[in-house]
Structure formats: C-alpha cells, structure tokens
C-alpha cells in the first residue's frame, strides 16, 4: 500500500515523456533530447479522407522517422470503453492502422465514456463503480489485450459531475479491474488534485488504497480554475504539488512505473512557448531522475 505524505519515500528513476500531436517539427526537435517516450493520441493525428477517418500520412511519416532513442506510447481518448452500448469501433480502426505501421511500447485509454447510443457527450464522464460495470470493463479490457497483445493501461479521469458512486471506492474499483484483467494503470496526479478540489475526494485515502505496483505510467499536467472548479484542460505548466504526488506514487510503485508524461494540448503551445515547454521537461527530468 502507499506511503503517506509524512513518510519518507524512496526516490526512483522514471523516464520522462511528452504528448505530441504532430506538425510542429521545431517543438519536437527541442523536446526529443529530453524525453524517452512520445505519447500519441490517434484521434488527434487523424483527418477525414473521403468521409472516412484516417491517420494523417504526414504525421505518421514524421513519427516513423524518429530514431530509436524515443518510444511511442498510444493513448486513446475516444474508445469509450464504458458505454453501455459498446465501445467505439472507429477508434479501434485508428489504433489498428497505427499499430500496423509503428511499434508502440504500450496502449492506454481512459476509464470513462464519451458516447451514449452513438451520441457524443462532448466530454468524458466517469463510470459508476458497480459489479455490473466491472464485468463489462473486464470483458472489454481482456478483448483489447487479446487483440493487440501489448500492455494495456487504464487511466483515472476527472469527475466533471458528482460521483455516481457504487459498491467500490475509486481505488478499489481500479484494483479490482487490474486484478481481474492484469491490465496496468496510468495514474494522472493532476486529475486527483482536480477531484480533491472540486469534490469531496480524499487523495490520501486513494493513495493508501491503490495498488501502486500496477502503475506503469503517470500523467502530470495543469489547467486553470474557473467558477471555483479546477479544470482538466492541460494548458499550463505543472504545479510542484502535482509533481510531488507523482514522486510518491513512483516510489511506492516499486520500480513498476516506467514513464511520467507531461501532457499539454496543442492549443496551449503558443501561450506556453517552446522554451517554457523545454524548461518544463528539464525540470521533470530533474524531479524524476530521467
């Protein structure tokens, strides 16, 4: 189980990664020497060709040209693994197309849903933590692991509306899913902070209960506060508290955590600036011993 805030944690090295959505060669050039992983989201490097969604040939060529010093991890946002009426086949087609062309270290998705009866919610919602939901998720996670024969990770998401509850705590639900399926976790420590800020969510209790040895990847990011809500918009540089939380998780993951990925959305690049992003990656390398 996890260490508490007051206990001494054992620092461990963790590689640094960063999100990349293509078409910014100058930014990529500055980031590559500082990262071991590039996290790519297939939906955001896609284009509509003849009414069909396909990966951008230009961006795929860019990714294929990367040397052996950086590994690609594939991170979906629209699988909608928790939809009652099934997941998104269009996402899986993109993932298939990507993995047919480029080797990836692992594949991941969010523990949530973005569609209901084929209708887009426009946002990602968290799932009720029930046995019914756990059965559905376990079957789908097993199917994905069989399909790609790669490590598959599930990420904790922000609760944008009040928690739907259920028979499990958040940590117990993730533990049950990883135990049933053998999948790994992405722990987004900024998402934990958002939940603690916006809802009665206890980070310490969560960290005490989660099986951190299932955490292979961490996400760090930062957004803005609006109307009293801390928003998961990936538009800022990380706060020290977010990095410290990630350090605690890495220490308790006992060597299983392999990457900390700094997430920012391309819409934020102009505001942040290339230099600040480069400095942030340097800072994260220092913090995580990358």
């Amino acid at each position, binding site marked *: 189980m996890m260490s508490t805030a007051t206990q001494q944690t054992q620092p461990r090295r963790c590689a640094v990664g960063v999100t990349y959505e293509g078409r910014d060669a100058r930014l990529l050039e500055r980031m590559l020497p500082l990262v071991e992983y590039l996290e790519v989201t297939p939906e955001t490097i896609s*284009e509509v060709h003849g009414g069909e969604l396909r990966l951008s040939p230009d961006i795929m060529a860019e990714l294929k040209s990367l040397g052996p010093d950086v590994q690609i991890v594939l991170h979906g946002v629209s699988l909608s693994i928790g939809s*009652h*009426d099934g997941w998104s086949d269009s996402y899986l087609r993109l993932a298939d197309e990507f993995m047919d062309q480029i080797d990836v270290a692992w594949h991941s998705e969010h523990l949530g849903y973005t569609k209901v009866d084929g209708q887009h919610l426009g946002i990602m919602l968290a799932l009720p933590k029930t046995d019914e939901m756990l059965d559905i998720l376990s079957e789908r996670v097993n199917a994905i692991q069989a399909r790609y024969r790669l490590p598959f990770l599930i990420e904790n998401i922000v609760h944008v*509306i009040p928690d739907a509850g259920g028979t499990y705590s958040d940590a117990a639900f993730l533990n049950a899913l990883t135990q049933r399926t053998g999948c790994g976790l992405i722990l987004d420590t900024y998402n934990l902070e958002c939940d603690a800020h916006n*809802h009665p969510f206890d980070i310490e209790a969560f960290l005490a209960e989660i099986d951190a040895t299932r955490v292979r990847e961490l996400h760090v990011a930062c957004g803005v506060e609006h109307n009293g809500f801390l928003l998961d918009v990936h538009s800022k540089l990380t706060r020290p508290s977010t990095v410290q939380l990630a350090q605690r998780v890495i220490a308790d993951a006992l060597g299983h955590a392999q990457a900390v990925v700094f997430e920012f959305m391309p819409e934020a690049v102009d505001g942040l600036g290339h230099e600040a992003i480069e400095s942030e990656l340097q800072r994260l390398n220092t913090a995580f011993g990358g």
Partner: protein
Amino acid sequence: MDLATHQRSLLGLLRSNLDSSACTDPYIHRVAQSPDLQEAKRNIFLWRIYVLERTAPLTFRLLEQRGQLAARVAHFIATRNISPFRETQAPAFLEASSESADSLERSVARFELALLKVKAGDQGRHIAIWEFEPQVILHSLASAIPLPDPLPLGLYHTVVSRGFAGNLQIVSGHPPVFNG
C-alpha cells in the same frame, strides 16, 4: 437504475433535453441541480470553441467579428452529433456554415473547407462563389484584423486545387459553365 438508463439520463442533462423532475433516481436529481453540470456544459462549449479557433480560423473569425460565434457553435452542438475531437469537427462545422443563408459566411466556409480537403490530399477543384472581393476579406480574416467597412462588393470565384501555386486561384466573375 440500470447502466443504460443512467447514461442516457446524463446525456439528456448535458444536452438540456431531459426533464429531471420526471426522474426517480436521486443521483440524477443531484447532478441536475449541481453547479458541476453547468460547468461541464460550459466546458463542452469552450472545447468546441478552442478547436474551431485553431482548425477553422477564417470562418471562426468572421463569425466572431460579427458577434455570431457563440450562437452558431451552440446551434452546431445542439443539432450535430459530431465528435468533440479535432478530426471531424472543423469539416462538419464548415459544411454547416457552407449552407448558411448569409452569402459571405457561405463563401468563406466553402473556401476554408476546400483548403482543408486539399490539404488532406483531395485532388479535386473546389469552387466558391463570392459576392465580395475575396482577397481583401481573406487577408483581414487571416491576419485577424477587422473586415473593411463597407465590404468591397464584386463578383468573384475562388478555385482551390492542388494544381495551383499555393493551392489557390482567385478569379473575377462567375466560374465558366461547361456544357456537354
């Protein structure tokens, strides 16, 4: 409440088409009355705005300058079942604007949609008819400066195709009509 009803109810709350007073589930009542729901709706709207500002900048700025952006995006969200992610949103938004009753909006959106298609590898020739001088208007929109007032009238058409330098040709008058 079963999972399907739970998820359909939340979809209805986000789209403002569910009468929560008719629901028996206390959770749905709690969400309906929460400030979180209002903030989530605002986030859905703002995310669309962020994406369109970046992926359809010419039409975005035209609507913004005319004070029509918020209403157009709200209508787009309410009437089109489009993924919030970047890949499909701009083409769908531009297709909707391409059918606008407003001549200038229609021309700018058709032109910008053509640019997107050609950039994505489309080999066709895409023509947009203009009732205004396009070069001045496109320069203003691309530079994010106010449109000239009054707008310069004139009959033009733009042709977007991979066959032209810069993928673009601006021609005075109607496009030629080919018979047979």
